[in-house]
């Protein structure tokens, strides 16, 4: 190996605040050669961000480096004075953060923000800097960069903002780019574009890169080497191909196994990692993964494994495990010996129609307020849902997928009755629910429940869990206090939480546990249908698997129907019986999950499938991923709404709206003038 550009040795970081100290990093060591790309993955809270921030000395208040060295280009940044660090920041090391909205200054123009590092680090004049900034914006694919220079961040879409952030990080042509979850806040399609952009720029500028992410799919094709972190330590480090084919650490192995893409089959539950990552504010002895590891022995509890090479691994592949996965030359031992949960009871399905939507439309006035309405019909509208018809049967899981802003959540809100449709009918068990009022409406509320994306936000922070779970019963006047208490306890059992949880507050639970609580509350009234709006998108893979399993088990036990909303195709494929693909307020394709995701008929579905980051470095990138941005829902394109991004679009698409048709198999409907032949997608999603 050549002399590394960046070499982190035994880096330890502590964060002190509000009376407790968190050992955020413990003896982390990493090397990065010039021009190399290193990926850091791991579950939330494992120290990825802290590692990245330490390099630039940007630790949050109360954080400090307690040991180790960070050698960059010959200087030890861990011991360097602020002045030296300032010279490095934005100059030889650029950084991109996760949230492109909050990480840009809302009151400064884009041009000024992009040009700023130049003014700071090079002797460039204002005019030169502006010129260079404009070039840079062009380079990162910003349309009409000259015009954009004087815009403010809020005037840009998320993807464009992230392009600005990248332009800002790269304007001084740094030797190292650190990107901390640069695409997590973005849509799949935008994510793809940004990652492609980074790849391209890296190649052009010859930069080294550290890409921090929790998404194995993102990292698979973008980096040379991967470091897996767990509990503030590096668990395993290996070249990317090696890691994906032959992981050695038991944690890495379990992480892969929990991916829905790797599920043994649609009817089999996902592999999970039980328990929670360790809390870092107490001293930990032994292997940090031991409490959750199926292979842990006494040795693991007492001694800490050191990061080392062992026989059979490729050069540069190190791991810290006493009981590693055996080497697998054939390259497919990834799920070997991972304990799998036993399959639950078989699904109870009957063919009764539970929910039927007919031509449901929801328009929002562009601006609310008493004075805005004066303008009458001339007022502009956002067409959030534009004529959707679908049917959900009892006990069925209906998955809705689509890009951000396509109207998935609005559809969910319409179904649960949180909003009234502008037109169209929604009938539940044969009754039109939009006509229900008062007492009847209240009674109907029992039958459909909503499971929120962010269960924490959906729980009154001042109520103990017991009271939260009791509230639906109290509102509906079901049972006396004792009966309600009883029911609460059983609900907690159902979702696998200890009964003692009833006396605690929501903030004392982890994300996954809160999602369980959300599910428990949704179940309290024994609904026939649960609308789940992105119930797992905020969770780590391992926890996501727990929740998905739980949802599936409960469905089989109780015969509940799900309207499952998600942007994650793998998750939908794993859980849903039927899938609907939405684009700009319309269902463009519906049908059995197998059929739709394996043999898509609509170019949009195909595009979506092609942009998915498959967590496998061996999978070749798709030839023509979905480009461009979703048009604004306030001004949807005429005719077929997808035509502006469609590679197959012709004149007729602009004038006529395609009617739904079933060109291939019965039950697989598509709304497209030129449906695809319906052959298996080049990319497999599972």
């Amino acid at each position, binding site marked *: 190996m050549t002399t590394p550009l960046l070499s982190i040795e035994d880096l330890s970081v502590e964060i002190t605040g509000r009376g407790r100290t968190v050992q955020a990093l413990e003896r982390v060591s990493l090397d990065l050669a010039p021009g190399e790309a290193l990926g850091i993955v791991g579950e939330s809270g494992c120290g990825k961000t802290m590692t990245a921030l330490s390099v630039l000395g940007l630790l949050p208040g109360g954080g400090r480096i307690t040991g180790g060295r960070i050698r960059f280009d010959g200087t030890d940044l861990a011991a360097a004075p602020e002045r030296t660090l300032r010279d490095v920041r934005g100059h030889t090391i650029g950084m991109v953060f996760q949230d492109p909205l909050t990480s840009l200054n809302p009151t400064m123009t884009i041009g000024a923000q992009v040009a700023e590092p130049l003014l700071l680090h090079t002797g460039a004049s204002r005019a030169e800097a502006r010129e260079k900034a404009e070039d840079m914006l062009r380079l990162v694919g910003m349309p009409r960069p000259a015009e954009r220079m004087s815009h403010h961040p809020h005037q840009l879409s998320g993807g464009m903002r992230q392009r600005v952030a990248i332009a800002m990080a790269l304007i001084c042509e740094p030797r190292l780019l650190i990107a901390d979850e640069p695409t997590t806040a973005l849509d799949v399609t935008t994510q793809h574009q940004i990652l492609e952009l980074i790849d391209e720029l890296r190649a052009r500028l010859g930069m080294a890169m550290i890409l921090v992410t929790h998404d194995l799919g993102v990292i698979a094709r973008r980096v040379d080497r991967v470091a897996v972190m767990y509990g503030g330590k590096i668990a395993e480090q290996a070249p990317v191909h090696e890691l994906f084919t032959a992981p050695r650490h038991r944690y890495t192995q379990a992480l892969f196994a929990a991916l829905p893409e790797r599920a043994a089959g649609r009817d089999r539950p996902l592999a999970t990692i039980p328990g*929670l990552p360790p809390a870092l504010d107490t001293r930990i002895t032994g292997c940090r993964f031991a409490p959750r590891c199926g292979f842990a022995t006494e040795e693991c509890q007492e001694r800490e494994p050191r990061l080392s090479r062992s026989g059979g691994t490729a050069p540069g592949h190190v791991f810290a495990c006493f009981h590693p996965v055996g080497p697998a030359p054939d390259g497919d031992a990834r799920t070997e010996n991972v304990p799998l949960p036993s399959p639950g009871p078989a699904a109870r399905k009957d063919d009764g129609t539970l929910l039927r939507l007919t031509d449901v439309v929801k328009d929002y006035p562009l601006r609310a307020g008493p004075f805005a309405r004066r303008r009458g019909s001339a007022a502009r509208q956002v067409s959030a849902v534009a004529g959707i018809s679908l049917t959900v049967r009892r006990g069925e899981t209906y998955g809705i997928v689509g890009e951000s802003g396509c109207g998935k959540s609005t559809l969910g809100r319409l179904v649960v009755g949180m909003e009234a449709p502008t037109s169209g009918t929604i009938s539940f068990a044969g009754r039109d629910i939009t006509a229900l009022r008062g007492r009847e409406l209240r009674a109907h509320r029992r039958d459909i429940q909503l499971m929120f994306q962010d269960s924490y936000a959906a729980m009154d922070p001042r109520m103990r869990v017991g009271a939260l779970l009791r509230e639906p019963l109290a509102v*509906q006047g079901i049972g006396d206090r004792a009966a309600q208490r009883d029911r609460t306890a059983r609900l907690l059992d159902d979702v696998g939480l200890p009964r*003692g949880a009833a006396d605690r507050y929501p903030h004392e639970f982890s994300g996954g546990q809160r999602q369980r609580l959300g599910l428990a509350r949704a179940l309290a009234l024994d609904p026939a249908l649960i609308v789940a709006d992105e119930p797992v998108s905020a969770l780590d893979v391992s926890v996501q698997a727990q929740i998905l399993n739980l949802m599936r088990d409960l469905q089989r036990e109780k015969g509940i129907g799900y309207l499952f909303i998600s942007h994650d195709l793998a998750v939908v494929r794993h859980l849903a019986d039927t899938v609907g693909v939405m684009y700009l307020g319309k269902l463009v394709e519906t049908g059995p999950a197998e059929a739709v995701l394996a043999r898509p008929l609509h170019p949009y579905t195909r595009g979506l499938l092609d942009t998915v980051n498959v967590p496998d470095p061996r999978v070749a990138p798709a030839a023509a991923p979905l480009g461009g941005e979703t048009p604004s829902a306030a001004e949807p394109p005429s005719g077929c709404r997808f035509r502006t991004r469609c590679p197959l679009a012709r004149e007729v698409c602009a004038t006529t709206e395609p009617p739904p048709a079933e060109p291939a198999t019965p039950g697989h409907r598509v709304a497209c003038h030129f449906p695809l032949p319906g052959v298996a997608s080049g990319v497999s999603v599972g």
Partner: protein
Amino acid sequence: MTAAELPVPGGGTGAATATPSLARRTAAVFARNKLALAGTVVLVGLLALCFLGPLFHPTDQVHTDLARANLAPGTGGHLLGTTDLGYDMLGRLMYGGRTSLEVGLAAGLLATLFGTVYGAVAGYFGGWLDAAMMRITDAALAIPALFLLVVVAAIVTPSKPVLILIIASVAWLSPARLIRGEALALRSRDYVHAMRLMGGGGGRAVFRHIVPNALGTVVVNATFQIADAILYVAYLSFLGLSIPPPAADWGSMLSAGITYTQVGHWWLIFPPGIAIVLVVAAFNFIGDGLRDAFDVRLRKD
């Protein structure tokens, strides 16, 4: 999947020990704020002085004694001297403090209570009701409080209850606006939506979810409101609109003392003046500390 697999952070596995109440933990954070502690100490001290002091230092605050008027501190056994009517100044400070504190507390609390309900209703129900209710507060807020007080106090004869009502009648405006803002934000919270989806109604939303969740703001605002109410009492007295003598409050003592500035009777001015400043600042310190405490508690872990 068994329960044992899922330890609940922050306590033993599933043991029935409930977490300490929110109030307790708020208190802990509060206690770490030095200024807030200082404020509490000062406030407790002043309360003790006013309400327990007379037990140790009994004085006649009803009958004048012109023969012993205007004595300087220390003379004739009067630690803080006597007033222009011969009242013992220390005793009067205690006696007057009672009025100031009682009126301030009562008016501040009344204003907060009314303002909270008003604001929560306006904010939660929104629409035209909100617009109408808020225009009223806007109008009342556009008139400087002192202007209103001057006129209102001229209409009625001040007495303790009347003073409380007068002050509350201007002081409820700011909590009303504040809580309305809070209610506007809270009503679109997911947990309120969740409750509505269970079939719950507006009353439950306002009183079970919105008001309790705005409680932090309410409590913090109440302390500031009390502080302001005490100041208002002082201003009213300064403008000559205080409860009739021989009753006294710090403001009226101060304004009576101002007459003697030129004569050098400083002991008539500084004790009540400083007492007002101390008690108002103490409430502000406490409010600030509480705000920090609530802030921390409501932050996600």
